[in-house]
């Protein structure tokens, strides 16, 4: 049996590096949009805004209750049939849409829990000195909720980076799609896929390192 073809793997690295930016861009844009959407959904849930609250619950239930791959196919193949102007939807857009909606559903719940978890007596203290609700949120509640939510949100970001690999099923040539093509040409499947696995692994480890540093900073106020 032949051992790993290391030369092939090393040769693959510069090729895959060309597709890394697309993977990271999809994840970064997806995360940014998902954060904004999730914050909105969380506020609706916390304030129990009539009407919107029920709609939000349904949204969260659907996007957590169905597979991401199904959602991606729904956007890429399904939506254009419903809405004619979407015939041009490309795989990258569909992926970002899917990642945004899917992950915002999860993130909304952890942001909501973090907001609700801020000690009620601090809320009263802020109101007692005459802060408005907005000032209370900006100055007291959200900074503390952020600290609680960041570890979970970082984990969702890590999940999202890995989930971008599903884009190749929509014909997008990102990290995974490029690997697939290379492997099909060389038949060195194991080498190709272990190389891309290491790519994802390194990205995730870098993020995890950054996450630990961020958490240490955020926890500064709570050390005894």
């Amino acid at each position, binding site marked *: 049996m032949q051992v790993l073809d290391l030369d092939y793997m090393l040769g693959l690295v510069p090729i895959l590096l060309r597709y890394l930016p697309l993977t990271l861009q999809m994840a970064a844009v997806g995360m940014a949009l998902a954060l904004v959407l999730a914050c909105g959904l969380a506020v609706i849930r916390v304030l129990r805004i009539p009407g919107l609250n029920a709609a939000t619950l349904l949204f969260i239930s659907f996007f957590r209750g169905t597979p991401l791959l199904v959602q991606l196919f729904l956007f890429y193949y399904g939506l254009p049939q419903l809405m004619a102007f979407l015939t041009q939807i490309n795989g990258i857009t569909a992926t970002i849409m899917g990642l945004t909606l899917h992950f915002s559903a999860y993130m909304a719940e952890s942001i909501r829990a973090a907001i609700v978890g801020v*000690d009620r*007596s*601090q809320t*009263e*203290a*802020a*109101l*007692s*000195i*005459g*802060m*408005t609700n907005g*000032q209370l949120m900006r*100055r*007291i509640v959200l*900074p*503390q909720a952020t*600290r609680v939510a960041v570890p979970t949100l970082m984990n969702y970001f890590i999940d999202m980076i890995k989930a971008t690999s599903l884009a190749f099923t929509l014909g997008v040539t990102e990290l995974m799609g490029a690997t697939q093509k290379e492997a099909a040409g060389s038949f060195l499947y194991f080498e190709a896929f272990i190389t891309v696995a290491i790519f994802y692994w390194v990205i995730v480890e870098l993020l995890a390192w950054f996450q630990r540093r961020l958490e240490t900073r955020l926890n*500064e*106020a*709570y*050390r*005894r």
Partner: protein
Amino acid sequence: MIKVTGLVKRFGGTAVLDGIDLAIEQGEIIVVIGPSGTGKSTLLRCLNFLERPDAGRLIIGDLDVDVTRASRADILTARRRTAFVFQNYALFANKTALQNIAEGLIVVNRWPKEKAHARAREILERIGLADKADAYPASLSGGQQQRVGIGRAMAAQAEVILFDEPTSSLDPEWVEEVLGLMKQLARERQTMLVVTHEMSFARDVADRVIFMEGGRIVEQGPPDQLFGSPQDPRTRDFLHKVLATQVAIDTPT
């Protein structure tokens, strides 16, 4: 001057405050005592609109409102003129001692940060915590946290500071330093309305002691009179029980 008349607060069907009339002169130190569940905390919370009263009239300086019709602006005004010291300190956990004290000045009074921090440092000096300016609440003792809580209330420059059992959550070793700070404020004639079970504090510091029961003011007067010759049997009964557990009320401290 602060004045409430006919203050009523109901939870469910029961009137927890059942028509409270109270006037507080500037510089007056009032201690409120009474059995548990009598509405003492609710009274303080209503003055600060942390609870929305069901009836009554509230006058604080030039603010004069029917509490049921108080607008958002009225409520903010009332809150800015009444500072609150909480039993559990309720410090902002994400802010240092200095920031806790300066926060209201910056956000509510819109002072520039430097000016607010300078004032906060003066207050830290007065509460004896100048060296703890950059400490976060989690790293402070209970007594230190409550002193910061009082410092935060001092910064508000309110017409009155409302204290809701400020020493009840403290380990015994920290009680004296907090009472000491409150006595210092009393000497400076800071207007205070204090709910406490510390009878010696009431006797030494109060201008007037109010005994509440069942959502009403049963009896009030100077401490000598209220403790020395209580008129109402309910007052006598309460004092009898409390003084049995808190000895040495009559021995000078």
